[in-house]
């Protein structure tokens, strides 16, 4: 599927399924839809066996709905299962579990996914293999000290098979990231990563062609860091850039408005 078509479908799924479940974290999921579309159409679902499959760690686990939607679009998760998102007894919670087919790692506690990803990439380095490991972080997650331990480690060990993406939407639970713990502009963040030995680039996180280029296999020893400038709630005007939408679920009226806007986007 074309990444833009995939993204369009995924945006609609995020809104539909979250409404059905009455659960929030919608803006965080919409923020990463284009990134997920590029990863899932171009880089993740290509291998024949589970072991050879490229690894993907959604370190910002609270956007799991976008991951479930992507797995559904790849035919790995049924619509029935998807419709049971956050239902009693479902395996599909707000944060993802590795017991679900297609999900490599359970996440949810911010600051832990990059270390796991570094471990996976270290295994590849010891093996002398070629498997890639992708890790998607939120910008607020960079508040966690353990992320910087992993950044130091991956840069120092030249884990070239590791690619991290920061979903830089500028928002976190209680405010703007620049007001909570300011890490500077996207370029400032990229410069920080480069200073730890990563190959860093800033891209528009809603431009699938730019993302595809930034996430393409690179042939240096340095781990890759893609700083993706995004908009939380991307595609839904009343949600975009509004901190309240970190948690809120949609009312009926908001739901139909959101679907209309997403349809118009296409």
């Amino acid at each position, binding site marked *: 599927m074309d990444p833009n078509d995939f993204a369009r479908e995924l945006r609609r799924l995020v809104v539909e399924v979250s409404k059905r479940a009455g659960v929030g974290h919608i803006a965080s999921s919409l923020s990463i839809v284009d990134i997920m579309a590029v990863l899932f159409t171009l880089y993740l679902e290509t291998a024949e066996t589970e072991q050879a499959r490229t*690894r993907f760690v959604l370190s910002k686990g609270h956007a799991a709905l976008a991951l479930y939607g992507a797995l559904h679009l790849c035919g790995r998760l049924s619509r029935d299962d998807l419709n049971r998102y956050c239902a009693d007894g479902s395996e599909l919670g707000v944060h993802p579990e*590795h017991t679900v087919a297609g999900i*490599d*790692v*359970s*996440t*949810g*506690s911010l*600051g*832990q996914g*990059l*270390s*796991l*990803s*570094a*471990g*996976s*990439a*270290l*295994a*590849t380095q*010891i*093996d002398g293999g070629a498997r890639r490991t992708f890790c998607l972080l939120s910008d607020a997650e960079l508040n966690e*000290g*353990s992320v910087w*331990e*992993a950044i*130091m*480690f991956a840069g*120092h*060990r030249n884990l070239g098979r590791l690619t991290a993406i920061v979903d830089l939407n500028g928002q976190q639970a209680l405010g703007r990231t620049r007001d909570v713990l300011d890490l500077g502009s996207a370029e400032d963040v990229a410069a920080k990563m480069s200073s730890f030995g990563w190959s860093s680039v800033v891209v528009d996180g809603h431009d699938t062609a730019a993302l595809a280029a930034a996430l393409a296999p690179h042939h240096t020893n340095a781990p890759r860091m893609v700083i993706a400038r995004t908009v939380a709630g991307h595609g839904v005007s009343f949600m975009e850039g509004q901190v309240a939408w970190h948690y809120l679920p949609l009312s009926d009226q908001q739901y139909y408005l959101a679907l209309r806007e997403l349809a118009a986007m296409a």
Partner: protein
Amino acid sequence: MRKAVIHELTEIARTDERLVLLTGDLGFMVIEEFADTHPKRFINMGVAEANMLGVAAGLALEGYRPYCYSIATFASLRPFEQIRNGAHLHQSQVRVIAVGGGFGYGTAGITHHAVEDVAVMRTLPHMRVVVPADDRDAEAAVRALHDAEGPTYFRLAKDSRVLDGLPGTFDEARLQVIGDGDVLLLALGTIADEAMRAHASLAARGIHVRVAVATCLAPPPVAHLAELLGAASSVVTLEDHVLPGGLGSMAAEVIAEQGLACRLLRLGIEETHFSTVGSEAFLRRRAGLDAETVAARLATLVARHYLRAS
């Protein structure tokens, strides 16, 4: 005990290429044998234990067998959430080599006294918690559990010790039993040396107690423990660990849940906020966990038992 385990890992790694040793920048004059023999699979993670345990879970995900080496406090308390959400949640074959359980780093001060680690690790239902009694025991446990499913926490004494009278084997379902008597001294592996000395000094005075050394705290060796506790009138538990959640707690759980009549006296660390430093022997004495104090408590119990019996 540290060196014995590193030697064992060096040997296992000769035939198992999946074995990787990570250290949180610790192990001077201990870890070199492995580092020199298997340089590609020895990784100094720096002073970054949270990342070390996360990376270990990632390595295990790809089929490696990572062993994470650090001082017990830093290997258990700092990265606890990484252990919980990584190795434990994913049931991966990560091993924590936690050195200096109890007062092993006595002169280093309270930050280095690992006295809550067993309790913390016992809260994870699928974490194996192993506390060897001496070097041979530690080697045997590491080798026996290398292929075991799921994560394992090894709580090791810092210094080398070999205890005569212990079999030097490892069986996670059984305690190591020495001697016989109506009163049972139940000791945690890391402080089994004091228990053995107490046993010997009492025996020299004609006072006979049975000693059982617990080297596997989780899964708890319930059947064997219940058998030993059921045969005793009183049990004294001895641990270089705080009382809540440790060996004494485990004994209390078994006594209560099995409806046993055995009386329980728990000896452990009751005050952890003192700032005094000293040798392991000194700090044990100060906490009332040394062989002499333990022997005196046992002698009193045995005397009471005979008085009651007569």
